[in-house]
């Protein structure tokens, strides 16, 4: 089936993915609710809202923002991963592997615990700053711009991640009373998503996703190596700064509402590449849709595990992601 899907034209692939995505959004609106919501109520709630029906309120106030946020966060992380892999020409590059997640977590934990008066906005700015600092550090240590080897960049990412994680833990241990909020954030979940989060998320996500699509032709040329890209008229310095800013916008937008979600940025670009090849102009939209689908699916799966309590979607992703990654590596070696 997968092989037949690969042979379809790009437009068919996009339409099919979009259809599956809509199906999953619908599923996520009514599945595993403590107050039962029927499949048809999930539809009528959207188009013929009757606020006196409690199921409608649940769909509109809880489930719909949750589904939209899951999709957008998934798309942002997947696209950020695709840009990072294109920019560094390193198949292991992603927000989690190169330390952006860990840096953002440290920034967020520091502000949440040491200066809680800054609130949600303060912690997302801190997450963005933390991510930016680690990203810059990893790039310098890994000498990514000087044709450094792939391994060196990943090692730098892992080392910086470990350092940030250690600091985050230290902060958590020293200020145990406020640790639970940070711990939930570290696990990564969209279970608590409300419309307020959505309003905070969508402007940044929109800028990031549209901007990412606009730099895809440049990413294609960067893929030819530095000398060729420059000879074809690309201003390398500007291209890198622009790509890095887009990555930070996307990651910060995603992390500030959903917490630290790993694996999507690493895995989804590879899945998308196996479907549509290496042309970034096609790769990024497909990555966005697959990322949305994956996080949404993980969110749905996370509900029945210890029903009626919620399992963090981030944990589910790690459970799916790790074996899938091993499968991919082994297939690549063959």
């Amino acid at each position, binding site marked *: 089936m997968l092989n037949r899907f690969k042979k379809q034209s790009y437009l068919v692939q996009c339409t099919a993915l979009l259809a599956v995505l809509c199906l999953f959004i619908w599923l996520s609106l009514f599945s595993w609710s403590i107050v039962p919501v029927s499949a048809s109520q999930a539809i009528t709630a959207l188009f013929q809202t009757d606020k006196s029906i409690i199921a409608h309120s649940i769909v509109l106030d809880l489930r719909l923002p949750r589904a939209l946020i899951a999709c957008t966060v998934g798309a942002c992380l997947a696209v950020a991963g695709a840009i990072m892999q294109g920019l560094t*020409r390193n198949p292991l590059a992603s927000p989690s592997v190169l330390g952006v997640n860990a840096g953002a977590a440290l920034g967020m934990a520091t502000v949440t615990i040491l200066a809680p008066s800054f609130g949600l906005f303060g912690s997302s700015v801190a997450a963005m700053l933390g991510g930016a600092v680690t990203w810059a550090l990893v790039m310098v240590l890994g000498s990514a711009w000087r044709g450094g080897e792939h391994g060196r960049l990943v090692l730098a990412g892992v080392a910086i991640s470990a350092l940030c994680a250690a600091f985050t833990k230290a902060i958590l241990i020293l200020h145990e009373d406020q640790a639970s909020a940070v711990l939930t954030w570290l696990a990564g979940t969209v279970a608590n998503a409300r419309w307020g989060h959505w309003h905070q998320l969508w402007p940044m996500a929109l800028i990031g996703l549209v901007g990412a699509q606009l730099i895809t*032709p440049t990413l*294609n*040329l960067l*893929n*030819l*190596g*530095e*000398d*060729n890209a*420059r*000879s*074809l*008229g*690309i*201003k390398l310095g500007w291209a890198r700064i622009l790509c890095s800013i887009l990555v930070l916008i996307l990651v910060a937008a995603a992390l500030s509402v959903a917490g630290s979600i790993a694996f999507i940025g690493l895995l989804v670009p590879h899945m998308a*590449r196996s479907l549509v*090849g*290496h*042309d970034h*102009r096609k790769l990024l939209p497909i990555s966005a849709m697959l990322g949305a689908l994956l996080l949404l699916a993980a969110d749905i799966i996370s509900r029945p595990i210890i029903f009626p309590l919620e399992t963090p979607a981030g944990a589910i992703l790690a459970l799916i992601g790790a074996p899938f990654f091993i499968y991919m590596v082994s297939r690549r070696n063959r």
Partner: protein
Amino acid sequence: MSLSTHNVSVGYHGQAIVKNVSLTLPEGKIIALLGPNGCGKSTLLKAMARILTPMGGEIHWQGNNLHSTPSQYLATQLALLPQTQPIPEGIKVKDLVAYGRSPYTGFWGRLTKEDHKIIQQAMEQAGVTELSEQFVSELSGGQRQRVWLAMTLAQDTPYLLLDEPTTYMDLNHQVELMNLFKTLNEAGKTIITVLHDINQAARYCNHLVVMKAGEIITQGEPESVLTKELLESVFSVTAQIHTDPVAHTPMCIVE
């Protein structure tokens, strides 16, 4: 007059490899940069292709500083074939060659009929038409070199800069490439190439620039440049200069 260097020093990590070089490259010729390993010929070429920024001095293109000329415009004037190339994954030959058109295609990279014609022609000239549906990563080193050459040709620039283009190529493709230079040159292009093989340079190029230890030793037509003394002082070999029985160009035979 188009491309010239003025007291240019350039190198890596703060260490100059090319030292204070002033050189005007004659327009409309096939120019070979010659010299022993590490003499700075590739470094000088990279500086002229704006891959490296000079530590001192200026490189001029049409009388203006090369490094302050818009890069998109320069990409339509100067094309570089680097010595070592990455092996891009999952890209077909025809798509790679098409990237050569990107300085012209505008932002999204949509190809016009004219672009397709130039791509087709570039692939024919580099002899890779029959490879067009294959993935670049599946080709041999020599084939891949010709695919990159096709991309550089698709850039359709009046100046071509090539860094040891014959490396990895077997003999017949080397000959084809050198003949292609002649054809392109007759069509008005200026070709600047780093070469290792002195006899190849003397036979196919009409202007030689000889470098040693980051400095220009001499330049001019093969007949005047290629002397016993030069080979002795630059390459430290004792050699005789004879006339090539086929092309009637000078050739050296090491004693």
